């Protein structure tokens, strides 16, 4: 198909993501599959995993109320590979790489391609069933959005611990610092977060998980200019992703609470289907500084279906 034939932004986005992300992913998968077909070395030394997902987001612009909220749908395809390097009997380094992309249904410039590399140093004192696993991790992500303002890179560093509670329940905790450097300073952001995950292995049937996260730092919302928005904003710019040219993106300090409830069901050989609902609420730490103004709250819901497959 000639590029000149593409006039619909969504079709063009499909073409771009196909060319930049999906074709390389399919090539990667076919190599992994060819390896597995030949003499069945399925548990690849590179641990390639592919996931394809759909997400509905009912407040993609993180607006403070129903009238300003915009919805969108995301289609994602990611491939990841990891490699474990033993250091000694009780510690190892795990290297991880991810490459993928998102397409959006209504706002094509929110689509992106990205690449991520990460490393974690893991320590586990013994093979005792209840021995916790501690990890120091760092990862960096380069991402290119349809929106020039949003393109740039991110990083995250932190510590985590995994503790079995029973033979069906695991507790996973993370302390992390994350940062983002984008082409527009409104999307330059930093935050510190604490996350706790509870995973329940449903007998013979999959994993139910509940994740709670508290995050303190920068948040970004996109909406019409208003006294409240401008008063709490540290930085604001005219946004380049949405179809309404009147919208501005503004960054503010916030406390954010995120909860995710999900279920991962084994599905086919080496595959699983993951269903989840994520709820997030951000509250600015600074209230609007004029009489009669109330502090806005930004609430978002995301519903995700992801198919994961290992090669």
């Amino acid at each position: 198909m000639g590029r000149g034939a593409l006039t619909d932004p969504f079709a063009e986005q499909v073409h771009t993501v196909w060319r930049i992300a999906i074709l390389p992913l399919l090539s990667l998968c076919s190599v992994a599959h060819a390896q597995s077909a030949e003499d069945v070395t399925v548990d690849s030394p590179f641990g390639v995993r592919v996931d394809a997902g759909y997400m509905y987001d009912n407040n993609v612009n993180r607006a403070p109320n129903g009238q300003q909220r915009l919805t969108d749908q995301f289609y994602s395809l990611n491939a990841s590979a990891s490699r474990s390097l033993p250091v000694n009997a009780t510690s190892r380094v795990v290297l991880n790489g991810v490459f993928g992309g998102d397409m959006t249904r209504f706002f094509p410039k929110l689509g992106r391609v990205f690449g991520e590399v990460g490393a974690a140093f893991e320590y586990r004192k013994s093979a005792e069933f209840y021995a916790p696993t501690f990890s120091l991790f760092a990862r960096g992500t380069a991402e290119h959005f349809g929106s020039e303002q949003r393109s740039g890179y991110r990083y995250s560093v932190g510590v985590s611990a995994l503790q079995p509670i029973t033979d069906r329940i695991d507790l996973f905790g993370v302390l992390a610092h994350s940062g983002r450097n984008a082409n527009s300073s409104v999307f330059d952001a930093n935050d510190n977060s604490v996350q706790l995950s509870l995973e329940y292995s449903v007998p013979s049937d999959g994993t139910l998980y509940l994740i709670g996260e508290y995050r303190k730092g920068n948040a970004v919302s996109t909406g019409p200019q208003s006294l409240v928005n401008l008063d709490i904003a540290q930085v604001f710019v005219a946004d380049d992703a949405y179809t309404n040219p009147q919208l501005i993106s503004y960054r503010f300090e916030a406390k954010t609470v995120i909860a995710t409830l999900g279920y991962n069901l084994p599905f086919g050989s080496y595959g699983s289907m993951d269903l989840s609902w994520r709820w997030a609420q951000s509250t600015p730490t600074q209230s609007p500084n004029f009489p009669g103004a109330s502090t806005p709250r930004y609430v978002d819901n995301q519903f995700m279906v992801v198919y994961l497959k290992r090669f």
Partner: protein
Amino acid sequence: MSRSRDIDDPRRRLLIRALAAGFFSGSLATPKAMAQILGGRPAPLPPGQSVYRIDGQVQVDGAPATMDTRIAANSTIETGPNSQVIYVVGASAFIQRSESRVTMETKESDSVVLSGLQLLTGKILSVFPGGNPVRLTTRNATIGIRGTGVYMESDPEQTYFCTCYGVADIGATADPASQETVVSSQHDRPLYILTGEQAGQNIRRAPFINHTDQELMLIETLVGRTTPFVFPKGEYSGPRRTY
């Protein structure tokens, strides 16, 4: 931990299990009911106890099994559909999946030391103590081991065999030319043992399937041991999309 995957409706099954455990009938606080639903804290089983957990329908020597059932070194254990049993025999421990039939073998009738295990049909994860050789048999394979952790699946056409760790001498029963010795530190060489292929071609490489290191750690704990490796392989991880 992801385990076997042959159930149709997980919510229905969980509800049935909860009802069976008395979860909604005032016996909520009983340790057995709680452990049945939320899982237990594995520890070496006390002398005289063989069963760690029963899910669904399980028979031992033809009688329905309970948590108090003793499993001897010459017992036959059968699981029904959507069932699983975790148990200990002497210093060996097992997770036997659904629709499986296992017969233990010992050289002396009153001994708790296993000398053999027959898996005619089904799936079983096993750990054995060092010292005594054990002979494992399926419809088409014979395997000699000593102090290893292994996972087997047996059906009429083929046997799946993973030497999770340790050493195993594996042979196709009907093809003396198909023999292989596997030395494994962590699921290094899973195999299919086939029937009807050319002589010497009845053993093939296989993927790592249907068992986890967390399960191995669980059953080693029941007999007071640990796995030789510290980090589980293939841990569960969801998509973890960032917000």
